[in-house]
Protein backbone atom coordinates (compact mmCIF):
# COMPACT_ATOMS: atom_id res chain seq x y z
CA UNK A 1 0.00 0.00 0.00
CA UNK A 2 2.72 2.40 1.00
CA UNK A 3 4.63 1.70 -2.19
CA UNK A 4 1.62 2.42 -4.31
CA UNK A 5 0.99 5.68 -2.49
CA UNK A 6 4.59 6.72 -3.03
CA UNK A 7 4.27 5.87 -6.70
CA UNK A 8 1.14 7.94 -6.90
CA UNK A 9 2.77 10.93 -5.31
CA UNK A 10 5.73 10.74 -7.69
CA UNK A 11 3.35 10.44 -10.57
CA UNK A 12 1.37 13.40 -9.28
CA UNK A 13 4.55 15.44 -8.95
CA UNK A 14 5.59 14.56 -12.51
CA UNK A 15 2.20 15.46 -13.92
CA UNK A 16 2.35 18.76 -12.04
CA UNK A 17 5.79 19.58 -13.47
CA UNK A 18 4.66 18.85 -17.01
CA UNK A 19 1.49 20.89 -16.49
CA UNK A 20 3.56 23.84 -15.28
CA UNK A 21 5.89 23.52 -18.28
CA UNK A 22 3.00 23.64 -20.71
CA UNK A 23 1.56 26.55 -18.74
CA UNK A 24 4.73 28.50 -19.60
CA UNK A 25 3.39 29.10 -23.12
CA UNK A 26 0.20 30.65 -21.78
CA UNK A 27 2.17 32.68 -19.27
CA UNK A 28 4.47 33.94 -22.02
CA UNK A 29 1.63 35.17 -24.20
CA UNK A 30 -0.12 36.83 -21.26
CA UNK A 31 3.21 38.13 -20.01
CA UNK A 32 4.09 39.72 -23.33
CA UNK A 33 0.69 41.41 -23.48
CA UNK A 34 0.81 42.69 -19.89
CA UNK A 35 4.42 43.86 -20.03
CA UNK A 36 3.94 45.63 -23.36
CA UNK A 37 0.82 47.41 -22.10
CA UNK A 38 2.62 48.40 -18.89
CA UNK A 39 5.66 49.70 -20.74
CA UNK A 40 3.66 51.62 -23.29
CA UNK A 41 1.25 53.03 -20.72
CA UNK A 42 3.05 56.38 -20.66
CA UNK A 43 2.59 56.74 -24.41
CA UNK A 44 -0.96 55.39 -24.32
CA UNK A 45 -2.03 57.93 -21.69
CA UNK A 46 -0.12 60.69 -23.45
CA UNK A 47 -1.32 60.16 -27.02
CA UNK A 48 -4.45 58.04 -26.63
CA UNK A 49 -5.31 55.16 -28.94
CA UNK A 50 -7.08 56.60 -31.97
CA UNK A 51 -4.92 59.71 -32.05
CA UNK A 52 -1.70 57.67 -31.89
CA UNK A 53 -2.78 55.39 -34.70
CA UNK A 54 -3.93 58.29 -36.90
CA UNK A 55 -1.02 60.62 -36.28
CA UNK A 56 1.71 60.74 -38.91
CA UNK A 57 4.16 62.53 -36.59
CA UNK A 58 7.37 60.81 -35.62
CA UNK A 59 9.60 63.41 -34.10
CA UNK A 60 12.00 62.20 -31.40
CA UNK A 61 13.30 65.73 -30.83
CA UNK A 62 9.91 67.31 -30.10
CA UNK A 63 8.72 64.03 -28.57
CA UNK A 64 5.70 63.87 -30.77
CA UNK A 65 4.88 60.33 -31.83
CA UNK A 66 2.26 58.62 -33.97
CA UNK A 67 1.97 55.20 -35.54
CA UNK A 68 0.34 56.03 -38.88
CA UNK A 69 3.53 56.04 -40.97
CA UNK A 70 4.82 52.73 -39.63
CA UNK A 71 1.42 51.02 -39.75
CA UNK A 72 1.09 52.25 -43.33
CA UNK A 73 4.54 50.90 -44.20
CA UNK A 74 3.86 47.56 -42.52
CA UNK A 75 0.52 47.26 -44.29
CA UNK A 76 1.76 48.22 -47.77
CA UNK A 77 4.88 46.04 -47.69
CA UNK A 78 2.86 43.06 -46.44
CA UNK A 79 0.06 43.43 -48.98
CA UNK A 80 2.50 43.92 -51.84
CA UNK A 81 4.53 40.91 -50.73
CA UNK A 82 1.39 38.75 -50.56
CA UNK A 83 0.34 40.05 -53.96
CA UNK A 84 3.62 38.80 -55.45
CA UNK A 85 3.92 35.63 -53.37
CA UNK A 86 0.43 34.11 -53.54
CA UNK A 87 0.27 33.37 -57.30
CA UNK A 88 3.81 31.95 -57.27
CA UNK A 89 3.16 29.86 -54.17
CA UNK A 90 -0.07 28.41 -55.53
CA UNK A 91 1.67 27.78 -58.85
CA UNK A 92 4.36 25.83 -57.02
CA UNK A 93 1.73 23.82 -55.15
CA UNK A 94 -0.10 23.01 -58.40
CA UNK A 95 3.15 21.97 -60.04
CA UNK A 96 4.20 19.72 -57.18
CA UNK A 97 0.85 17.99 -56.73
CA UNK A 98 -0.51 17.79 -60.27
CA UNK A 99 2.18 18.24 -62.89
CA UNK A 100 5.61 17.16 -61.75
CA UNK A 101 6.81 13.61 -62.26
CA UNK A 102 7.29 11.75 -58.99
CA UNK A 103 11.05 11.95 -58.94
CA UNK A 104 10.91 15.76 -58.90
CA UNK A 105 8.45 16.14 -56.04
CA UNK A 106 11.00 15.40 -53.37
CA UNK A 107 13.74 17.84 -54.54
CA UNK A 108 11.25 20.67 -54.96
CA UNK A 109 9.79 19.94 -51.53
CA UNK A 110 13.27 20.10 -50.04
CA UNK A 111 14.08 23.29 -51.94
CA UNK A 112 10.98 24.97 -50.53
CA UNK A 113 11.81 23.79 -47.04
CA UNK A 114 15.36 25.11 -47.30
CA UNK A 115 14.09 28.44 -48.57
CA UNK A 116 12.02 28.61 -45.38
CA UNK A 117 15.00 27.65 -43.21
CA UNK A 118 17.35 30.40 -44.41
CA UNK A 119 17.51 32.97 -41.61
CA UNK A 120 15.94 36.31 -42.33
CA UNK A 121 19.17 38.22 -41.77
CA UNK A 122 20.65 36.37 -44.75
CA UNK A 123 17.72 37.53 -46.87
CA UNK A 124 18.44 41.04 -45.60
CA UNK A 125 22.15 40.89 -46.49
CA UNK A 126 21.42 39.45 -49.87
CA UNK A 127 18.75 42.08 -50.47
CA UNK A 128 21.10 44.91 -49.59
CA UNK A 129 24.15 43.79 -51.55
CA UNK A 130 22.65 41.84 -54.45
CA UNK A 131 18.97 42.57 -55.02
CA UNK A 132 18.96 46.33 -54.31
CA UNK A 133 21.59 47.12 -56.99
CA UNK A 134 19.74 44.95 -59.52
CA UNK A 135 16.46 46.66 -58.68
CA UNK A 136 17.88 50.18 -58.96
CA UNK A 137 19.83 49.50 -62.14
CA UNK A 138 17.48 47.37 -64.21
CA UNK A 139 14.06 46.56 -62.83
CA UNK A 140 12.96 49.88 -61.36
CA UNK A 141 13.97 52.04 -64.34
CA UNK A 142 12.15 49.57 -66.58
CA UNK A 143 9.03 49.77 -64.41
CA UNK A 144 9.26 53.55 -64.36
CA UNK A 145 9.53 53.74 -68.13
CA UNK A 146 6.66 51.34 -68.75
CA UNK A 147 4.02 51.43 -66.02
CA UNK A 148 5.22 54.76 -64.65
CA UNK A 149 3.91 56.48 -67.74
CA UNK A 150 0.43 55.07 -67.32
CA UNK A 151 -1.95 57.48 -65.58
CA UNK A 152 -3.21 56.59 -62.05
CA UNK A 153 -1.12 53.40 -61.60
CA UNK A 154 1.93 55.39 -62.63
CA UNK A 155 1.93 57.24 -59.30
CA UNK A 156 3.30 54.09 -57.72
CA UNK A 157 6.44 54.20 -59.82
CA UNK A 158 7.71 57.78 -59.57
CA UNK A 159 10.94 59.22 -58.29
CA UNK A 160 14.55 58.13 -58.43
CA UNK A 161 14.99 54.38 -58.27
CA UNK A 162 17.50 53.90 -55.47
CA UNK A 163 16.92 50.25 -54.70
CA UNK A 164 16.51 51.03 -50.99
CA UNK A 165 12.75 51.28 -51.00
CA UNK A 166 9.34 49.74 -50.48
CA UNK A 167 9.42 47.72 -53.69
CA UNK A 168 12.71 45.96 -52.95
CA UNK A 169 11.62 45.23 -49.38
CA UNK A 170 8.35 43.74 -50.62
CA UNK A 171 10.13 41.54 -53.15
CA UNK A 172 12.40 40.12 -50.45
CA UNK A 173 9.44 39.67 -48.13
CA UNK A 174 7.57 37.83 -50.86
CA UNK A 175 10.45 35.42 -51.45
CA UNK A 176 10.47 34.75 -47.72
CA UNK A 177 6.78 33.94 -47.42
CA UNK A 178 6.45 31.87 -50.60
CA UNK A 179 7.53 28.67 -48.76
CA UNK A 180 4.83 28.99 -46.06
CA UNK A 181 1.99 29.50 -48.49
CA UNK A 182 3.34 26.92 -50.92
CA UNK A 183 3.83 24.10 -48.44
CA UNK A 184 0.45 24.56 -46.75
CA UNK A 185 -1.31 24.81 -50.13
CA UNK A 186 0.50 21.68 -51.31
CA UNK A 187 -0.57 19.77 -48.22
CA UNK A 188 -4.18 20.77 -48.63
CA UNK A 189 -4.13 20.02 -52.40
CA UNK A 190 -2.92 16.54 -51.50
CA UNK A 191 -6.00 16.02 -49.34
CA UNK A 192 -8.35 16.22 -52.32
CA UNK A 193 -9.72 12.68 -52.71
CA UNK A 194 -8.48 11.01 -55.90
CA UNK A 195 -11.99 9.77 -56.65
CA UNK A 196 -13.34 13.30 -56.98
CA UNK A 197 -10.53 14.29 -59.33
CA UNK A 198 -10.91 11.10 -61.36
CA UNK A 199 -14.61 11.68 -61.87
CA UNK A 200 -13.83 15.11 -63.25
CA UNK A 201 -11.28 13.64 -65.63
CA UNK A 202 -13.82 10.98 -66.63
CA UNK A 203 -16.26 13.58 -67.93
CA UNK A 204 -13.46 15.03 -70.08
CA UNK A 205 -12.09 17.87 -67.96
CA UNK A 206 -8.61 19.14 -68.78
CA UNK A 207 -5.97 19.16 -66.07
CA UNK A 208 -6.37 22.87 -65.46
CA UNK A 209 -10.15 22.50 -65.19
CA UNK A 210 -9.67 19.79 -62.58
CA UNK A 211 -7.34 22.06 -60.61
CA UNK A 212 -9.56 25.11 -61.01
CA UNK A 213 -12.94 23.51 -60.42
CA UNK A 214 -12.16 20.59 -58.12
CA UNK A 215 -8.85 20.90 -56.29
CA UNK A 216 -8.88 24.65 -55.56
CA UNK A 217 -12.45 24.79 -54.21
CA UNK A 218 -11.83 21.64 -52.22
CA UNK A 219 -8.72 22.99 -50.53
CA UNK A 220 -10.00 26.57 -50.19
CA UNK A 221 -9.75 26.62 -46.39
CA UNK A 222 -6.20 25.32 -46.38
CA UNK A 223 -5.14 27.99 -48.86
CA UNK A 224 -6.77 30.73 -46.78
CA UNK A 225 -4.92 29.32 -43.80
CA UNK A 226 -1.60 29.38 -45.64
CA UNK A 227 -2.17 32.94 -46.84
CA UNK A 228 -3.14 34.30 -43.41
CA UNK A 229 -0.17 32.51 -41.84
CA UNK A 230 2.12 34.19 -44.36
CA UNK A 231 0.38 37.49 -43.60
CA UNK A 232 1.15 37.07 -39.90
CA UNK A 233 4.74 36.19 -40.67
CA UNK A 234 5.20 39.11 -43.07
CA UNK A 235 3.79 41.63 -40.58
CA UNK A 236 6.44 40.76 -38.04
CA UNK A 237 9.42 40.16 -40.30
CA UNK A 238 12.28 42.38 -39.24
CA UNK A 239 15.75 41.62 -40.47
CA UNK A 240 14.85 40.87 -44.08
CA UNK A 241 13.42 44.34 -44.53
CA UNK A 242 15.57 46.27 -42.05
CA UNK A 243 18.42 46.48 -44.55
CA UNK A 244 16.54 47.74 -47.55
CA UNK A 245 13.64 49.84 -46.32
CA UNK A 246 15.53 52.92 -45.13
CA UNK A 247 13.44 53.72 -42.02
CA UNK A 248 11.83 56.84 -43.45
CA UNK A 249 8.82 58.01 -41.43
CA UNK A 250 6.75 59.35 -44.27
CA UNK A 251 3.68 58.22 -46.11
CA UNK A 252 4.50 58.34 -49.79
CA UNK A 253 2.64 57.17 -52.84
CA UNK A 254 5.63 55.91 -54.79
CA UNK A 255 7.03 52.46 -54.18
CA UNK A 256 10.47 53.86 -55.03
CA UNK A 257 10.63 55.76 -51.75
CA UNK A 258 12.19 54.62 -48.51
CA UNK A 259 9.61 53.82 -45.87
CA UNK A 260 9.32 52.50 -42.33
CA UNK A 261 7.57 49.52 -40.84
CA UNK A 262 6.93 48.87 -37.16
CA UNK A 263 9.63 46.20 -37.09
CA UNK A 264 12.25 48.31 -38.86
CA UNK A 265 11.56 51.27 -36.60
CA UNK A 266 11.99 49.06 -33.54
CA UNK A 267 15.22 47.53 -34.85
CA UNK A 268 16.75 50.90 -35.68
CA UNK A 269 15.55 53.10 -32.85
CA UNK A 270 14.92 50.93 -29.81
CA UNK A 271 18.46 51.03 -28.45
CA UNK A 272 18.78 54.73 -29.24
CA UNK A 273 15.64 55.87 -27.45
CA UNK A 274 16.98 58.05 -24.68
CA UNK A 275 13.75 59.55 -23.37
CA UNK A 276 11.00 57.74 -21.50
CA UNK A 277 8.23 58.86 -23.82
CA UNK A 278 10.25 57.83 -26.88
CA UNK A 279 10.90 54.34 -25.52
CA UNK A 280 7.31 54.03 -24.38
CA UNK A 281 6.08 54.95 -27.86
CA UNK A 282 8.31 52.24 -29.32
CA UNK A 283 6.81 49.74 -26.87
CA UNK A 284 3.41 51.00 -28.00
CA UNK A 285 4.37 50.14 -31.61
CA UNK A 286 5.49 46.68 -30.45
CA UNK A 287 2.14 46.21 -28.71
CA UNK A 288 0.24 47.18 -31.87
CA UNK A 289 2.37 44.77 -33.90
CA UNK A 290 1.84 41.98 -31.37
CA UNK A 291 -1.94 42.43 -31.47
CA UNK A 292 -2.05 42.63 -35.29
CA UNK A 293 0.04 39.53 -35.84
CA UNK A 294 -1.73 37.62 -33.06
CA UNK A 295 -5.06 38.24 -34.77
CA UNK A 296 -3.68 37.20 -38.17
CA UNK A 297 -2.09 34.04 -36.77
CA UNK A 298 -5.21 33.11 -34.77
CA UNK A 299 -7.26 33.53 -37.94
CA UNK A 300 -4.81 31.31 -39.84
CA UNK A 301 -5.09 28.65 -37.14
CA UNK A 302 -8.89 28.91 -37.30
CA UNK A 303 -8.89 28.26 -41.07
CA UNK A 304 -6.44 25.37 -40.78
CA UNK A 305 -8.36 23.71 -37.93
CA UNK A 306 -11.58 24.08 -39.90
CA UNK A 307 -9.92 22.54 -42.96
CA UNK A 308 -8.63 19.67 -40.84
CA UNK A 309 -12.07 19.01 -39.38
CA UNK A 310 -13.63 19.07 -42.84
CA UNK A 311 -11.31 16.39 -44.21
CA UNK A 312 -11.45 14.17 -41.14
CA UNK A 313 -15.23 14.09 -41.30
Amino acid at each position, binding site marked *: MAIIEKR*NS*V*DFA*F*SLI*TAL*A*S*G*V*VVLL*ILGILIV*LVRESWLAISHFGVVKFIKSTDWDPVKENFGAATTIFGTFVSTVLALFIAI*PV*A*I*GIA*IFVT*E*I*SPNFMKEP*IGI*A*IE*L*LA*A*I*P*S*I*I*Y*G*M*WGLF*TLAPIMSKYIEPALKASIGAVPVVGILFQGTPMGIDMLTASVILSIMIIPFT*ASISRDSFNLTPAVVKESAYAIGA*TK*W*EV*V*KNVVLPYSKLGIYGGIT*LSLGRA*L*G*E*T*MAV*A*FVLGNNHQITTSLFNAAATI*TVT*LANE*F*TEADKDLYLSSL*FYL*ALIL*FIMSFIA*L*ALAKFFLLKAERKTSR
Partner: protein
Amino acid sequence: MNIDQKRRIESIVALTLSTLAALSGMFWLVFILGDVLVRGIGALTPSLFLNDPTPAGVSGGGLRNAFVGQLMITGVATLIGVPIGILGGTFLAEYARGTKVAQAISVLSDIMVSVPSIVVGTFIYAIMVKPVGHFNGWAGAVALAVIMIPVVLRTTEDMLSLVPWTLREAAFALGAPYYKVIIQVVYRGAATGILTGILLSIARVAGETAPLLFTSFNNSFMSTDMRGSMASLTASIFQYAMGPYDEWHIQAWGASFVITVFILLITIAGRLIIKWRYK
Protein backbone atom coordinates in the same frame (compact mmCIF):
# COMPACT_ATOMS: atom_id res chain seq x y z
CA MET B 1 -11.22 28.08 -82.84
CA ASN B 2 -13.64 25.67 -81.30
CA ILE B 3 -14.26 25.37 -77.59
CA ASP B 4 -12.23 22.19 -77.14
CA GLN B 5 -9.12 23.78 -78.55
CA LYS B 6 -9.67 26.81 -76.38
CA ARG B 7 -9.95 24.65 -73.27
CA ARG B 8 -6.83 22.73 -74.19
CA ILE B 9 -4.81 25.89 -74.80
CA GLU B 10 -6.07 27.41 -71.54
CA SER B 11 -4.94 24.29 -69.73
CA ILE B 12 -1.50 24.35 -71.31
CA VAL B 13 -1.03 28.04 -70.48
CA ALA B 14 -2.05 27.56 -66.87
CA LEU B 15 0.15 24.52 -66.38
CA THR B 16 3.11 26.27 -67.98
CA LEU B 17 2.67 29.18 -65.59
CA SER B 18 2.63 26.78 -62.64
CA THR B 19 5.81 25.15 -63.87
CA LEU B 20 7.42 28.56 -64.21
CA ALA B 21 6.35 29.37 -60.64
CA ALA B 22 8.03 26.22 -59.39
CA LEU B 23 11.15 27.04 -61.37
CA SER B 24 11.20 30.55 -59.93
CA GLY B 25 11.09 29.09 -56.43
CA MET B 26 14.14 26.99 -57.26
CA PHE B 27 15.72 30.02 -58.92
CA TRP B 28 15.53 32.16 -55.77
CA LEU B 29 16.95 29.37 -53.65
CA VAL B 30 19.89 28.83 -55.98
CA PHE B 31 20.39 32.59 -56.39
CA ILE B 32 20.42 33.37 -52.66
CA LEU B 33 22.35 30.30 -51.56
CA GLY B 34 24.83 30.60 -54.41
CA ASP B 35 25.43 34.24 -53.62
CA VAL B 36 26.01 33.57 -49.91
CA LEU B 37 28.28 30.61 -50.64
CA VAL B 38 30.34 32.30 -53.36
CA ARG B 39 30.79 35.58 -51.52
CA GLY B 40 31.20 33.90 -48.15
CA ILE B 41 33.74 31.26 -48.98
CA GLY B 42 36.37 33.84 -49.87
CA ALA B 43 35.93 35.43 -46.45
CA LEU B 44 36.65 32.22 -44.57
CA THR B 45 40.17 33.03 -43.45
CA PRO B 46 41.72 31.77 -40.21
CA SER B 47 41.69 35.31 -38.86
CA LEU B 48 37.88 35.39 -39.13
CA PHE B 49 37.68 32.62 -36.54
CA LEU B 50 40.76 33.34 -34.46
CA ASN B 51 40.94 37.12 -34.14
CA ASP B 52 38.79 39.59 -32.30
CA PRO B 53 37.52 42.66 -34.12
CA THR B 54 40.05 45.38 -34.75
CA PRO B 55 39.25 49.09 -34.77
CA ALA B 56 37.68 50.16 -38.06
CA GLY B 57 40.30 50.55 -40.76
CA VAL B 58 42.83 48.24 -39.12
CA SER B 59 43.01 45.02 -41.11
CA GLY B 60 43.24 41.48 -39.81
CA GLY B 61 40.20 41.60 -37.56
CA GLY B 62 37.94 38.62 -37.05
CA LEU B 63 34.77 37.62 -35.30
CA ARG B 64 36.06 35.20 -32.65
CA ASN B 65 34.05 37.00 -29.97
CA ALA B 66 30.89 36.63 -32.02
CA PHE B 67 31.39 32.91 -32.59
CA VAL B 68 31.95 32.35 -28.87
CA GLY B 69 29.03 34.58 -27.89
CA GLN B 70 26.71 32.92 -30.39
CA LEU B 71 27.60 29.45 -29.10
CA MET B 72 27.07 30.45 -25.48
CA ILE B 73 23.80 32.27 -26.05
CA THR B 74 22.37 29.49 -28.24
CA GLY B 75 23.66 26.82 -25.85
CA VAL B 76 22.05 28.38 -22.78
CA ALA B 77 18.85 28.98 -24.73
CA THR B 78 18.79 25.28 -25.62
CA LEU B 79 19.37 24.29 -21.99
CA ILE B 80 16.42 26.44 -20.91
CA GLY B 81 14.08 25.89 -23.81
CA VAL B 82 14.40 22.17 -24.47
CA PRO B 83 13.45 20.78 -21.01
CA ILE B 84 10.47 23.12 -20.69
CA GLY B 85 9.36 22.33 -24.23
CA ILE B 86 9.64 18.56 -23.81
CA LEU B 87 7.86 18.54 -20.43
CA GLY B 88 5.14 20.83 -21.74
CA GLY B 89 4.65 18.63 -24.79
CA THR B 90 4.47 15.61 -22.52
CA PHE B 91 1.61 17.17 -20.58
CA LEU B 92 -0.35 17.89 -23.76
CA ALA B 93 0.19 14.46 -25.28
CA GLU B 94 -0.11 12.37 -22.11
CA TYR B 95 -1.80 13.72 -18.98
CA ALA B 96 -4.04 16.17 -20.78
CA ARG B 97 -4.49 14.17 -23.99
CA GLY B 98 -7.71 15.02 -25.80
CA THR B 99 -8.84 17.65 -23.29
CA LYS B 100 -9.94 21.17 -24.16
CA VAL B 101 -7.00 22.58 -22.15
CA ALA B 102 -4.50 20.62 -24.23
CA GLN B 103 -6.13 21.79 -27.47
CA ALA B 104 -6.11 25.41 -26.34
CA ILE B 105 -2.44 25.32 -25.32
CA SER B 106 -1.57 23.57 -28.54
CA VAL B 107 -3.23 26.29 -30.61
CA LEU B 108 -1.60 29.03 -28.52
CA SER B 109 1.81 27.40 -29.06
CA ASP B 110 1.25 27.32 -32.80
CA ILE B 111 0.51 31.03 -32.69
CA MET B 112 3.48 31.64 -30.40
CA VAL B 113 5.77 29.91 -32.93
CA SER B 114 5.08 32.68 -35.44
CA VAL B 115 4.84 35.67 -33.11
CA PRO B 116 7.25 38.37 -34.37
CA SER B 117 10.61 37.68 -32.77
CA ILE B 118 11.31 41.38 -32.38
CA VAL B 119 8.31 41.61 -30.05
CA VAL B 120 9.90 38.89 -27.92
CA GLY B 121 13.03 41.06 -27.89
CA THR B 122 11.17 44.08 -26.56
CA PHE B 123 9.43 41.90 -23.94
CA ILE B 124 12.72 40.48 -22.62
CA TYR B 125 14.24 43.97 -22.70
CA ALA B 126 11.49 45.17 -20.40
CA ILE B 127 11.84 42.37 -17.87
CA MET B 128 15.55 41.51 -18.00
CA VAL B 129 17.50 44.49 -19.33
CA LYS B 130 15.67 47.55 -18.01
CA PRO B 131 15.65 46.39 -14.36
CA VAL B 132 19.42 45.77 -14.28
CA GLY B 133 20.20 48.78 -16.39
CA HIS B 134 22.44 47.18 -19.01
CA PHE B 135 22.33 44.64 -21.84
CA ASN B 136 23.30 41.12 -20.85
CA GLY B 137 23.89 37.71 -22.41
CA TRP B 138 21.36 35.98 -20.16
CA ALA B 139 18.60 38.14 -21.60
CA GLY B 140 19.63 37.12 -25.11
CA ALA B 141 19.58 33.45 -24.14
CA VAL B 142 16.16 33.75 -22.50
CA ALA B 143 14.80 35.59 -25.55
CA LEU B 144 15.92 32.72 -27.79
CA ALA B 145 14.54 30.19 -25.30
CA VAL B 146 11.15 31.91 -25.44
CA ILE B 147 11.14 31.38 -29.21
CA MET B 148 12.34 27.81 -28.81
CA ILE B 149 9.83 26.58 -26.21
CA PRO B 150 6.71 26.49 -28.39
CA VAL B 151 8.63 24.84 -31.25
CA VAL B 152 9.96 22.02 -29.06
CA LEU B 153 6.63 21.71 -27.27
CA ARG B 154 4.63 21.22 -30.45
CA THR B 155 7.03 18.70 -32.03
CA THR B 156 7.22 16.73 -28.77
CA GLU B 157 3.44 16.64 -28.57
CA ASP B 158 3.20 15.40 -32.15
CA MET B 159 5.93 12.81 -31.72
CA LEU B 160 4.50 11.40 -28.48
CA SER B 161 1.08 11.14 -30.10
CA LEU B 162 2.62 8.90 -32.76
CA VAL B 163 3.60 6.30 -30.14
CA PRO B 164 0.83 3.66 -30.24
CA TRP B 165 -1.49 3.72 -27.25
CA THR B 166 -1.31 -0.09 -26.95
CA LEU B 167 2.37 0.22 -26.00
CA ARG B 168 1.37 2.25 -22.98
CA GLU B 169 -1.36 -0.25 -22.09
CA ALA B 170 1.17 -3.07 -22.13
CA ALA B 171 3.31 -1.16 -19.62
CA PHE B 172 0.28 -0.28 -17.49
CA ALA B 173 -0.61 -3.96 -17.40
CA LEU B 174 2.74 -4.68 -15.78
CA GLY B 175 1.77 -2.30 -13.02
CA ALA B 176 3.97 0.62 -14.02
CA PRO B 177 2.81 4.06 -12.90
CA TYR B 178 2.20 6.62 -15.62
CA TYR B 179 5.40 8.59 -15.10
CA LYS B 180 7.46 5.41 -15.51
CA VAL B 181 5.52 4.51 -18.64
CA ILE B 182 6.22 7.95 -20.08
CA ILE B 183 9.92 8.01 -19.25
CA GLN B 184 10.80 4.41 -20.04
CA VAL B 185 8.41 3.52 -22.83
CA VAL B 186 6.95 6.59 -24.53
CA TYR B 187 10.12 8.72 -24.55
CA ARG B 188 12.11 5.80 -25.91
CA GLY B 189 9.64 5.20 -28.69
CA ALA B 190 9.67 8.85 -29.67
CA ALA B 191 13.35 9.59 -29.01
CA THR B 192 14.42 10.14 -32.63
CA GLY B 193 11.43 12.34 -33.30
CA ILE B 194 12.04 14.48 -30.23
CA LEU B 195 15.73 14.76 -31.06
CA THR B 196 14.85 15.93 -34.56
CA GLY B 197 12.52 18.52 -33.07
CA ILE B 198 15.34 19.78 -30.86
CA LEU B 199 17.71 19.99 -33.82
CA LEU B 200 15.19 21.93 -35.89
CA SER B 201 14.46 24.30 -33.02
CA ILE B 202 18.18 25.02 -32.66
CA ALA B 203 18.32 25.75 -36.38
CA ARG B 204 15.35 28.04 -35.93
CA VAL B 205 16.88 30.20 -33.20
CA ALA B 206 20.49 30.13 -34.41
CA GLY B 207 19.64 32.60 -37.17
CA GLU B 208 17.49 34.89 -35.04
CA THR B 209 18.73 38.44 -34.92
CA ALA B 210 15.89 40.71 -33.93
CA PRO B 211 15.48 39.38 -30.36
CA LEU B 212 19.20 39.74 -29.68
CA LEU B 213 19.45 43.38 -30.71
CA PHE B 214 17.83 44.63 -27.49
CA THR B 215 18.97 41.91 -25.13
CA SER B 216 22.53 40.70 -25.55
CA PHE B 217 23.17 43.66 -27.89
CA ASN B 218 26.74 43.46 -29.21
CA ASN B 219 30.26 43.69 -27.91
CA SER B 220 33.39 44.34 -29.92
CA PHE B 221 35.55 42.67 -27.31
CA MET B 222 35.92 39.04 -26.41
CA SER B 223 33.63 38.32 -23.48
CA THR B 224 32.37 35.14 -21.86
CA ASP B 225 30.55 36.97 -19.10
CA MET B 226 26.85 36.41 -19.61
CA ARG B 227 26.09 39.28 -17.23
CA GLY B 228 27.42 41.83 -19.68
CA SER B 229 26.57 42.60 -23.28
CA MET B 230 27.70 39.88 -25.63
CA ALA B 231 28.54 39.62 -29.28
CA SER B 232 26.62 37.25 -31.54
CA LEU B 233 27.13 36.33 -35.16
CA THR B 234 23.77 37.62 -36.27
CA ALA B 235 24.00 40.96 -34.49
CA SER B 236 27.54 41.35 -35.88
CA ILE B 237 26.29 40.64 -39.39
CA PHE B 238 23.69 43.37 -38.98
CA GLN B 239 26.22 45.87 -37.67
CA TYR B 240 28.90 45.02 -40.23
CA ALA B 241 26.63 44.88 -43.26
CA MET B 242 25.13 48.28 -42.44
CA GLY B 243 28.56 49.73 -41.78
CA PRO B 244 30.59 51.68 -44.35
CA TYR B 245 33.75 49.55 -44.57
CA ASP B 246 34.42 46.95 -47.24
CA GLU B 247 36.33 44.80 -44.83
CA TRP B 248 33.29 44.68 -42.54
CA HIS B 249 31.13 43.61 -45.47
CA ILE B 250 33.50 40.76 -46.30
CA GLN B 251 33.44 39.56 -42.70
CA ALA B 252 29.66 39.81 -42.65
CA TRP B 253 29.53 37.54 -45.71
CA GLY B 254 31.88 35.09 -43.99
CA ALA B 255 29.67 34.99 -40.90
CA SER B 256 26.58 34.59 -43.09
CA PHE B 257 28.22 31.66 -44.83
CA VAL B 258 28.95 29.89 -41.54
CA ILE B 259 25.49 30.43 -40.12
CA THR B 260 23.68 29.48 -43.34
CA VAL B 261 25.66 26.29 -43.83
CA PHE B 262 25.16 25.34 -40.16
CA ILE B 263 21.39 25.86 -40.34
CA LEU B 264 20.94 24.14 -43.70
CA LEU B 265 22.96 21.11 -42.57
CA ILE B 266 20.84 20.76 -39.43
CA THR B 267 17.64 21.17 -41.41
CA ILE B 268 18.67 18.56 -43.96
CA ALA B 269 19.84 16.18 -41.21
CA GLY B 270 16.53 16.58 -39.40
CA ARG B 271 14.62 15.86 -42.57
CA LEU B 272 16.71 12.77 -43.32
CA ILE B 273 16.23 11.44 -39.78
CA ILE B 274 12.45 11.86 -40.00
CA LYS B 275 12.40 10.18 -43.39
CA TRP B 276 14.52 7.29 -42.19
CA ARG B 277 12.63 6.79 -38.94
CA TYR B 278 9.00 7.32 -40.01
CA LYS B 279 8.99 5.79 -43.44
